[in-house]
């Protein structure tokens, strides 16, 4: 069985998507728009939806802000959006993106833990480094590398320039993971005989000291229902592969061919082997694909072409762009799944159109071929992904004392 997720961003991943969407484009700033998308993903029994976010405006350039007025600009905090969706859905995983370069690790960690509490165990997280130097001016506390036009042509070059931020991001995830474990599951004892609500021996300082920050702990939020919410990351180069191996439960890769699927998967496996991941905590590998789907492949091509014309340039993407029918996409996904991937994160070219094509076209096709679930079999995101609830890293540490 393959895993399937959808990446939600604005009104779709084509910069001109808002021009042709069937919803009112301004609805992107309202809760109901997002709830409807997540509910549709849930009707398709998808593993999870991701929600993009950044602490600066969108831009046509990877590394610089721009002055374009003909593309979607503006956004809503992704964690709050995910929390707003949670009570209106029951099974689909919710994976917001947060910046980890300009934010406080403690706040981010308790935000994700809280999302896990309000969703009864459906939270994930995509920590993201801030790769646009202009965003640092929004905070005025540090500077980050300014990528050049030359840099952005090559993912390895970007990753090299950003390497210190990846190191720091790995520290942020380590802090979050320790904070999530800092309360043992049975820390709350409510012992009236001794007047104790908590057992201090089951609540732990995390004592993290890194190059960029220190966090004492413990968390103020008790251990989330999943123990550890699912950490995801997007990776295009060797340093991010290592980051995924160090920090993530799910990695989003961007192969463009079957050969690249094989080669990239092997590279990720080597990175995992070098990191000595905890036993029983595999890294799930997903491929990202931008999709334009219609029952008639010609129609999908014309739709995409029209969007390219509206935007003034053909769509550029780190991930493979798939234009065709749900059946053709199912062929590709099954082939790549056989080549070693655990699942796929599809980026709809236009919302909600291409999401419907996924849930009402692709999903039934995959089910017909016995490759995708027909109903949810678990209630947590870890459960959907076949990941067990991890033991608490601190639970053993008090054994000698009691």
């Amino acid at each position, binding site marked *: 069985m393959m895993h399937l997720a959808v990446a939600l961003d604005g009104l779709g991943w084509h910069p001109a998507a808002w021009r042709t969407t069937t919803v009112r484009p301004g609805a992107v*700033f309202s809760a109901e728009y997002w709830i409807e998308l997540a509910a549709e993903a849930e009707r398709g029994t998808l593993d999870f939806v991701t929600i993009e976010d950044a602490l600066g405006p969108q831009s046509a350039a990877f590394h610089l802000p721009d*002055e374009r007025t*003909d593309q979607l600009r503006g956004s809503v*905090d992704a964690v709050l959006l995910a929390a707003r969706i949670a009570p209106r859905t029951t099974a689909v995983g919710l994976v917001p993106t947060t910046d980890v370069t300009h934010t406080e690790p*403690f*706040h981010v960690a*308790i935000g994700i833990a*809280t999302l896990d509490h309000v969703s009864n165990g459906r939270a994930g997280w995509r920590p993201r480094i801030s790769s646009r130097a202009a965003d640092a001016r929004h905070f005025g506390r540090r500077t980050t590398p300014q990528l050049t036009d030359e840099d952005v042509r090559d993912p390895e070059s970007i990753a090299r320039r950003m390497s210190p931020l990846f190191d720091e991001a790995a520290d942020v995830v380590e802090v979050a993971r320790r904070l999530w474990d800092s309360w043992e599951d049975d820390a709350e004892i409510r012992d009236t005989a001794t007047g104790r609500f908590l057992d201090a021996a089951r609540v732990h300082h995390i004592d993290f000291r890194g190059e960029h920050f220190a966090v004492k702990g413990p968390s103020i939020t008790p251990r989330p229902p999943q123990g550890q919410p699912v950490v995801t990351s997007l990776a295009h180069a060797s340093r991010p592969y290592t980051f995924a191996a160090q920090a993530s439960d799910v990695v989003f890769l961007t192969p463009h061919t079957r050969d690249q699927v094989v080669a990239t998967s092997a590279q990720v496996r080597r990175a995992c082997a070098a990191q000595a991941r905890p036993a029983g905590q595999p890294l799930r590998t997903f491929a990202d694909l931008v999709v334009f789907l219609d029952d008639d492949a010609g129609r999908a091509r014309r739709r995409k072409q029209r969007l390219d014309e509206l935007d003034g340039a053909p769509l550029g993407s780190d991930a493979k762009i798939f234009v065709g029918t749900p059946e053709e996409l199912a062929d590709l996904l099954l082939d790549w799944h056989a080549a070693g991937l655990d699942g796929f994160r599809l980026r709809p070219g236009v919302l909600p159109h291409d999401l419907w094509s996924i849930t009402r076209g692709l999903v039934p096709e995959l089910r017909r071929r016995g490759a995708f679930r027909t109903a949810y079999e678990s209630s947590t995101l870890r459960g959907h992904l076949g990941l067990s609830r991890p033991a608490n890293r601190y639970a053993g540490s008090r054994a000698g004392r009691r």
Partner: protein
Amino acid sequence: MHLAAQLPGIHNVTVWSDPRSRSQIGWESFAHLARTAERGKFDFFFLAEGLRLREHKGRIYELDVAGRPESLTVLSALAAITTHLGLAATVNATFNEPYEVARRLASLDLLSGGRAAWNVVTSFDAFTGENFRRGGFLDEAQRYQRAEEFLGVARRLWDSLSLADLPADQATGEFVRPGAGTFAHQGQHFDIAGRFTTPAGPQGHPVVIQAGESPQGREFAAAQADVIFSKYNRLPEARAFYQDVKGRLARYGRGAADLKIIPTATCVVADTDAEAAELAGEITRAQVSPQTAIAHLEAVWGRDLSGYDPDGPLPQVDPLPANQLLQGHSVFRGDRAKVARRWREIAEDRGLSIRELVIAVGDGQTFVGSPATVATAMRHFVSTGGADGFVLVPHTTPGGLDDVVDRVVPLLQESGAFRADYEGTTLREHLGLAQRHTAREAIR
């Protein structure tokens, strides 16, 4: 009269030992409390903040309810199951940055249809700072300067981008107006510039709440806040505070109705006044367990008193007030030598045991009696210039508001002292506050 509900989780108000007491972190508890508050037509639901678990004698403090969510995240979830209730988060101005806080509050206001509020607090200790990149802390004067500048920057950011700047017009192909969201600010604490990304919600600016006590805090609130949380829930001192703060408003071109003063209060309701009094005594004793009594005494005395009998007299040993045993607890950070002298005087005058003393110096219960008695007392408090309403703090989670909402609120409604139904949809409308925008001349 305005009413708010606070989810407990601070100090020893919550009686976790009550058999009806449920999870203080589970979603169902928050949902129950918020739905109850909305059923009671409350103005808003309020969450406090504590960014580090308290420690006593070098260990995590065990006696009080602990464990809380990230405020804005849980409030955003509550927006999904409520339609009118205001949603107030306490967010620290010391351990956050304006761009992110302004963005998250604008997001909550959008996602809740104009129901967001921000209780602006500053942090007082390096102990809390140990959980943050910034570390450290600021002295009293700096704290308010930073908070004031922080709030000013947040307002500027909210004003920098509105839905009107985002026409998203498919016919013309214009999504965003040129330059929308542009801001620049240079001050003592913040030097920032760029583009804001989240359009202001229906309220323009979320409702701003403050809890200033010091003259500086009162001045800050008079200039900037829409609501003050006060601790003054006894009439004479409440009236003095009320008059003092309202008297400062004219200086800022504001009227008395522009700032609501609402003290925190607890209610104990029973069929008769006598039963309620008995129940109030039980609650208070449960709040001050023998262990809590000793811990509070230790916090003031600055020394280990675990060998003393909570039902016996105060120890003869002198306090070591410089010694801070209980960290992260705002109540015990004042002049401990002075507090210790006062406590000894009270205990000796009235012949109180340790536990009786800690009960006597505590807040006790604010409104106690039959539903009619409590409703009358609340109305009297408001009509005689003590407050504009109350933040009610229930003793138990999640059922602690049920009695007030089911038995007291209907009486307040019948008498016309409290709304029978919501008349608007935004929190500013519930509070009778104008939509707030500052001038935009600095932006373009």
